């Protein structure tokens, strides 16, 4: 399992892995927002938590179609499926690698982009916390979507269509935590809900992903 994780991480960091692409996308989306809504700092600080959450979500989505497709193309996915390691763990490791290479950098980058959008000071802490709790769910749900569409030629767009509705609860609670934190309100309820969703998806969704992957590999 650890060998597989290291392999995925190496592949992502080295040339052609597209490690920085998600971060760059996050940056560009955040920079484009003031151009589209205007530079008033009061307006920007109101929408900053939501925009940052949406940016992180889209950046996460962007990298999903590479999650399994590369392994599918060169046949290593078939090898992994026949390996003694259960496919459920393979899928979980894949999601973990995706989170380490996409989700975690987004979490770390978010405060800096928050400065650009004039995020209120108490908001920084809650933004990081909410993203830290919420992004693993996005990786796990994304892995399910990637497993569903892995064999398809024009899977990329379809993947977005399938995954985005599944992101709705995570986005609602995550952005709610960040928004409430920024305005100094109580954040416990949405944060617990967000953590619950993340925990449940990590516990249950790998089984669905593995089942779907088995169907696709048949």
């Amino acid at each position, binding site marked *: 399992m650890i060998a597989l994780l290291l392999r995925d991480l190496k592949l992502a960091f080295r040339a052609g892995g597209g490690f920085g692409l998600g971060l760059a996308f996050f940056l560009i989306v955040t920079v484009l927002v003031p151009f589209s809504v205007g530079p008033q700092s009061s307006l920007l600080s109101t929408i900053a938590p939501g925009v940052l959450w949406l940016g992180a979500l889209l950046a996460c989505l962007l990298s999903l179609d590479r999650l399994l497709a590369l392994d599918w193309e060169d046949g290593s996915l078939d090898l992994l499926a026949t390996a003694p390691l259960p496919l459920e763990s393979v899928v979980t490791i894949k999601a973990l690698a995706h989170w380490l290479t996409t989700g975690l950098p987004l979490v770390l980058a978010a405060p800096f982009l928050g400065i650009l959008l004039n995020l209120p000071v108490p908001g920084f802490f809650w933004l990081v916390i909410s993203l830290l709790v919420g992004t693993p769910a996005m990786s796990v749900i994304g892995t*399910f979507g990637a497993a*569903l*569409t892995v*064999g*398809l030629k*024009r*899977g990329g767009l*379809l993947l977005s*269509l*399938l995954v*985005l*509705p*599944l992101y*709705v*609860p995570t986005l*609602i*609670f995550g952005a*709610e935590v960040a928004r409430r934190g920024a305005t100094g309100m109580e954040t416990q*309820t*949405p944060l617990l*809900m967000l953590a619950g*969703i993340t925990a449940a998806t990590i516990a249950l*969704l790998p089984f*669905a992903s593995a*089942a*779907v992957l088995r*169907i*696709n590999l*048949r």
Partner: protein
Amino acid sequence: MSIAAKANSLWEYANPRKFLATSERVLPFFWITSAVCVVVGLVWGFFFTPDDYKQGSTVKIIYLHVPAALMAINCWLMMLATSLIWLVRRHHVSALASRAAAPVGIVMTLIALVTGAIWGQPMWGTWWAWDPRLTSFLILFLFYLGYVALWEAIEDPDTAADLTSVLCLVGSVFALLSRYAVNFWNQGLHQGASVMRVAAVTGADSEEKVSNVYFYPLLLCIIGFVLLFIALVLYRTGTEIRARRIKALQARERVSG
């Protein structure tokens, strides 16, 4: 395929031939009764009920709105059931039925959304509000779109049936989750369920009940929509079965020719 199910059991209809024969026999009944129910219900509702003292004649859009919304949700539940049956017992008719139902569900969702918007414009003063019920329906619509898109994208029919079934199961959980998340996220304009509440029908709470004048035509419309839905799904499932047969015949011809 296991046709060896017990006689007179529900699983007999898993045999496509048996399904087609029976559905063809009962279809005219469903078409006619649903047409009668919907037409009578709508005409009764539109022309023979009084205008509401507050909402005027706009109230009459419930005769389309409520049944369509009801069927949009029930259609997803039916797809959930047929998907489960496909995954557990692998009856092809079941998978095809859920494929056949999805577009019907999309149309029902659209009718509910559009009639709601048409009613909301004069009553709430806006075509659209991010009310929990409205938002949940929009999300349901997105789920339907994804489901149909996945069916269309995969060439191998059995793989498509498997994948869409799993998507339907996972999607149901997330749709339910979204429903509660959306409730948490925003307080609503939309009234609560006022048709099927016992107190509302019996008139125990006079505040929010749908009064009996409106209730009977509405009930007729709902029955009509249910029958119409059954008819459409049976009909479309038959079409899917025949399309599958044509494909099989063509494949056989190519092999022998």
